[in-house]
């Protein structure tokens, strides 16, 4: 063990003198997170406010709930209720009425609730909710669409809930009242939570986390491919000639990879928290997720390296694996929102588990990290043990 530390210390000393390690480990992920972060939130203290017009052609209990508990409940949203579609259109379409009531009475978007809305929601029929955006308020109009979509997503869950209760009680319940009971539970406070159909991180934290795990697959390479570098340097011959075991050499490499990985993520976390006000969540949960992510990255890089003859080859292959898994795992855009095959396929990537773990942690308690942590550890241990066997066998001068 002491030998492993000696080797790890030597490796870290080498890394500290190697500029590319800083760039890959700290500068690049930080720069990316900052770029994404600022692009997303140009002004951190900017308060969201929007004015939405609603035309309720249904006038049912359900439509009233939508207006009061969905639209009015969203922070910063002012709701103008209008009697006719024409009046509503006038507020969002300047072409129709360019000079009418110039001050304060335009809307960013118009919601049109169709006449059969309430009946449709109570039945299993398609619900159509129309949103007309104001051309000159595109981002707020976009949020209006997201609100409507979020509501549509909630409707599915209403039906699911009702169905489940029915099965459990083995009898018909009053669909209408159960549905309304679920619908009228208070909406989560933040806008992002409203728009999402799964739990999701806020934009800044999302990109900070995405970049952290994405670059992790590059930083841990410095530890593991250094074994191949030792061969290139000729120093592997000396390590093999020294009175130490092969396992302690591998352990030394693992320790340095682990420390480099942890430090680079930690620096990124601290910086994005201070500069971008990223909210990583419960520190213990985050620490467990990061730990497991580092292990999974080490395992995958070790596996890939064990098939390589040179450090360059290993770096290329590990980088390819990192990029593919990173995209698939949704570190650049949230593939969970894409739905379909890709949304399920993403779980072959530890990146997805890391992102999902952080997202769940932001909304739930510590227990939610258990599954992602176990899965990532399993990734790391399985790939890592195969990789180590290969690397050990390849340890020849």
């Amino acid at each position, binding site marked *: 063990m002491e030998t492993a530390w000696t080797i790890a210390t030597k490796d870290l000393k080498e890394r500290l003198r190697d500029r590319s390690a800083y760039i890959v480990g700290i500068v690049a992920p930080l720069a990316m997170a900052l770029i994404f972060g600022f692009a997303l939130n140009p002004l951190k203290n900017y308060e969201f406010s929007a004015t939405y017009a609603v035309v309720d052609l249904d006038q049912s209990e359900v439509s009233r709930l939508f207006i009061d508990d969905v639209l009015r409940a969203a922070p910063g949203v002012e709701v103008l209720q209008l009697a006719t579609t024409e009046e509503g259109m006038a507020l969002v379409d300047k072409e129709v009425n360019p000079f009418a009531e110039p001050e304060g009475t335009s809307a960013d978007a118009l919601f049109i609730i169709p006449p059969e809305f309430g009946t449709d929601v109570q039945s299993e029929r398609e619900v159509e909710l129309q949103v007309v955006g104001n051309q000159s308020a595109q981002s707020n109009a976009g949020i209006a669409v997201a609100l409507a979509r979020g509501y549509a997503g909630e409707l599915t869950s209403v039906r699911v809930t009702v169905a489940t209760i029915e099965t459990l009680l083995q009898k018909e319940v009053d669909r209408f009242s159960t549905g309304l009971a679920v619908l009228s539970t208070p909406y989560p406070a933040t806008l992002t939570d409203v728009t999402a159909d799964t739990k999701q991180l806020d934009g800044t934290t999302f990109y900070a986390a995405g970049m952290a795990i994405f670059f992790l697959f590059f930083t841990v390479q410095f530890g593991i491919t250094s074994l191949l570098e030792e061969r290139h340097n000729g120093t592997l011959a000396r390590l093999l000639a020294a009175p*130490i*075991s092969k396992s302690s050499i591998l352990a030394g490499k693992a320790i340095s990879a682990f420390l480099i990985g942890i430090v680079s993520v930690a620096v990124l976390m601290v910086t994005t928290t201070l500069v971008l006000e990223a909210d990583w969540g419960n520190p213990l949960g985050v620490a467990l997720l990061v730990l497991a992510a580092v292990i999974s990255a080490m395992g995958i890089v070790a596996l890939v390296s064990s098939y390589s003859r040179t450090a360059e080859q290993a770096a290329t292959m590990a980088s390819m694996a990192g990029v593919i898994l990173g995209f698939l795992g949704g570190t650049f855009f949230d593939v969970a929102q894409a739905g379909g095959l890709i949304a399920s396929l993403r779980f072959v990537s530890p990146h997805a588990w890391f992102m999902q773990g952080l997202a769940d942690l932001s909304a739930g308690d510590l227990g939610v990290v258990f599954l992602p942590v176990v899965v990532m550890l399993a990734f790391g241990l399985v790939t890592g043990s195969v990789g180590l066997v290969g690397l050990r066998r390849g340890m020849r001068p």
Partner: protein
Amino acid sequence: MGSDLSNGNVLECSDIRKTFGDFVAVDGVGFHIGAGETYGLLGPNGAGKTTTISIIAGLLERDGGTVLIAGEAMDPEATAAKRHVGLVPQDLAIYPDLDARENLRFFGRLYGLRGSELDHRVDEVLDIIELRDRANDRSDEYSGGMKRRLNIGIGLLHHPTLLILDEPTVGVDPQSRNAILESVERLGEEGMAVLYTTHYMEEAERLCDRIGIIDHGTIKAEGTQRDLVQLVGQRDRVRLVATGNLAAGSAALGELPGIDDAAVTAQGIDLIVENAHDELPEILSVASRTGVSVGGVDVDTANLEAVFLHLTGRALRE
């Protein structure tokens, strides 16, 4: 390093075999090295020197044979045997991002040196390899010769019982080369057993007490330089630049037991002798007794180049 040398040999190996796929790189090599002895493995490129050394140092698995270092069996997992060995690989084996002192300290620690013992020994080695004033510069800023010296220094750190040097002078300028050869000579004199591979005949002649000539993975012949030369019937040539009664002198010298042939030439007398070094006093006294006045002596010792050519049918350097 305390070692139990019941039979006085630091290294004993026999019948070492190694194949790479179908290719037989080492085919039954065996020899021994006593304490304080310098043994040379002389052979051309691809002869199997590095492979043999890698097996002796425990870097490579062997396909057959035995290796004992100071009485301990060597194999890739044998840490006890490895403690006795200092290895200087053929290719530079240093960390370019670290300075000389850091390189030495790192490897010293791997061999169990700690604290003041480590500090002291690192300074000592820095003196031996004459890098003390550059000890804190990154080693990728060193000249080729300096890197070579550091490469050797690392092998010396832990006072090995057996120092293995694999062609340490390849690609080195004449000045550094001489410094390296002098250090190796000194280490041999101080009692370190040395295994030295080279394809430079002059180095083997200068440094080695005994030499094994290796080619195609087998040792073709082994012994002192003289043994080898005699083995193939090589003789020394002694030229006496002389005046006086050359005919009588030549006849008398031809009768001496160590002299195979004597002939009068334009400058004096030419002799073919078994061992110029041993016979020279006798030659000079016989010459003066028979009325030959010797103005100069020119000795041409038989060399390993010729031995090698004879044994293998090819020259050492192709």
